[in-house]
């Protein structure tokens, strides 16, 4: 099975609100000093989903990332996890891609690469939180998409996926080629072994630029980016010597406030 996984590097999404800063010029978050960009969390789960298939079925996994030079690091991370090859899509002309332009460049790269059976993406990246690129690639390639997938099974040529619903889940049968966006319930991403990390560090990662792939014009324009106000954060701490005392005081306080 030929699997393509699309991954993105983003600022660490777990940065606490108090440390979060914006650069009004570039309309981007400022990376706190010393921090590196990380692989977007759901994308890493998509890699894990691909590796789970490879565990039981002879497969080749190609990782694609649209990003700056530094995105080589996350591609190498995916190779160290067990993926077979990676391609970086990088060009100043790709830099300000919105969901549309990103999906377009990725879809063109997938076409250029040639054969594929299954494309996997994270359900949503943690920077712009748009959740559109996966479905977009599927539309552009004219293949079906299944979103928020938490399990993939391939048995005798039948591909069965489980996806989340708001009040449960649904089991669907998907003809290949197809695209799936993966949710975190698929399971924790595996750790790369030391040997794999060493191997990955030696692998060549080709870079495709606007020479190879025509960029697309974004459809949405970012007018402004700002930090919203959440009002005055004023926490009243319940101070008592014992935890039981705190529980009692908390319950009383909530009762006085007519909340319970």
């Amino acid at each position, binding site marked *: 099975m030929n699997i393509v996984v699309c991954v993105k590097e983003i600022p660490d999404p777990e940065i606490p609100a108090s440390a979060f800063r914006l650069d009004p010029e570039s309309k981007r978050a400022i990376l706190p000093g010393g921090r590196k960009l990380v692989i977007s969390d759901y994308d890493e789960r998509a890699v894990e989903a691909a590796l789970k298939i490879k565990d039981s079925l002879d497969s080749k996994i190609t990782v694609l990332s649209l990003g700056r030079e530094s995105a080589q690091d996350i591609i190498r991370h995916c190779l160290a996890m067990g993926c077979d090859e990676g391609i970086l899509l990088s060009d100043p002309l790709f830099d300000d891609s919105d969901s549309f332009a990103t999906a377009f460049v990725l879809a063109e790269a997938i076409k250029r690469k040639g054969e594929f059976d299954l494309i996997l993406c994270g*359900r949503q990246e*943690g920077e712009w939180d748009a959740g559109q690129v996966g479905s977009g690639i599927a539309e552009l390639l004219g293949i079906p998409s299944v979103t928020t997938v938490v399990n993939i099974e391939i048995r005798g040529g039948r591909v069965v996926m489980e996806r*989340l*619903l708001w009040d*449960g889940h*649904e089991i669907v049968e998907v003809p290949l080629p197809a695209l799936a966006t993966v949710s975190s319930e698929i399971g924790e991403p595996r750790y790369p072994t030391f040997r794999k990390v060493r191997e990955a560090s030696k692998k060549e990662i080709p870079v495709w630029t606007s020479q190879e792939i025509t960029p697309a014009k974004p*459809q949405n324009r970012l007018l402004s980016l700002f930090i919203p106000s959440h009002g005055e954060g004023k926490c009243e701490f319940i101070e008592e010597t014992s935890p039981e005392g*705190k529980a009692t005081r908390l319950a009383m306080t909530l009762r006085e406030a007519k909340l319970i």
Partner: protein
Amino acid sequence: MDRNMDRSEVVIVGELEEGKIASITAELLTVGRTLADELNATLSTVFVGNQISPEVASEAISLGGDKVYIIDTPLFKDYLTDTYVAALESLDREVKPGILLLGHTTLGRDLAPSLAFRLKTGLTTDCVELSIDAETGCLRKTKPVYGGNAWATYVCDAGHPHMATLRAKVIPPLKRDASRKGEVVHFDPQLDEATARVKVIDRVREEMPGARLEGANIIVCGGRGIGSPEGFKQLEELARILNGAVGCTRIPSDNKWVPASYQIGLTGKVVSPSLYIGMALSGASQHLAGISGNTTIVAVNKDPEANIFSRAHYGVIDDYQKVLPALIEECRQLRSSGSPGGDDKLEE
């Protein structure tokens, strides 16, 4: 809008819940009404499904709509990306709306991106504010980004309709006005079975004990620090006593301590209880994104530096395992001596 007659409708993709209009659709009608009035446009709602009750259309009109499209054949009994995208693509060709809005729900999250790419237009998902740009007449779409640490405002420069999905519970619905009059149009996109490439084999609904999370007035929410399914049993006990519901952060759902449908946040549910008690969770912005409205937040966490305390109204710095049993006992006693008003009896 566009000074183009074709683009004189604002269309909402309606959703039903147990046959009735879902709250997100009422919220969309409120925003849609404001936008349509500003543009002098017609506000329409489209319902796709099978055996849709005629009351749905009149209800959508009472809630602020001018027009309702009904797409109702057995093919649309269950939601499928392929059939719904094709149906709405066909409606778009017929109606040519200027603006197309969906809810940021299970359906909208799946349908809106595919539809936007099919229609070759720009979509902004999970919006919390929608308005008309005075200068260009375009739809201004504001949404949280960076997990909610920042907000971004977009306009779509290329393509029509201008599309957005709206986050649940950020807009209060309009009051019903049963005297409103409107038009109902039945629309048949003439699709056949072959449109659906993906086939549904089974749909499984998870039973949630107690109140429904989305409508609950009190929510007891657990995070990574709860540590096990047994820990959640205790949270369920507290929720039961308070007539509330249990929620979780992403970690307990990833670890399968509770079903995924318990998850609150950016990729989970949006809730607006009057009281939220968060236990052993750090208060990541992606989690807090799921708490909307005028909610009193209580946090129990052993780390005084936890981010949740910067948003909480009441904080307890301690091990939840020591606080929770006493809190359960205390609440049981309080509840058995009456509800918050003091004099009326408890429902149970």
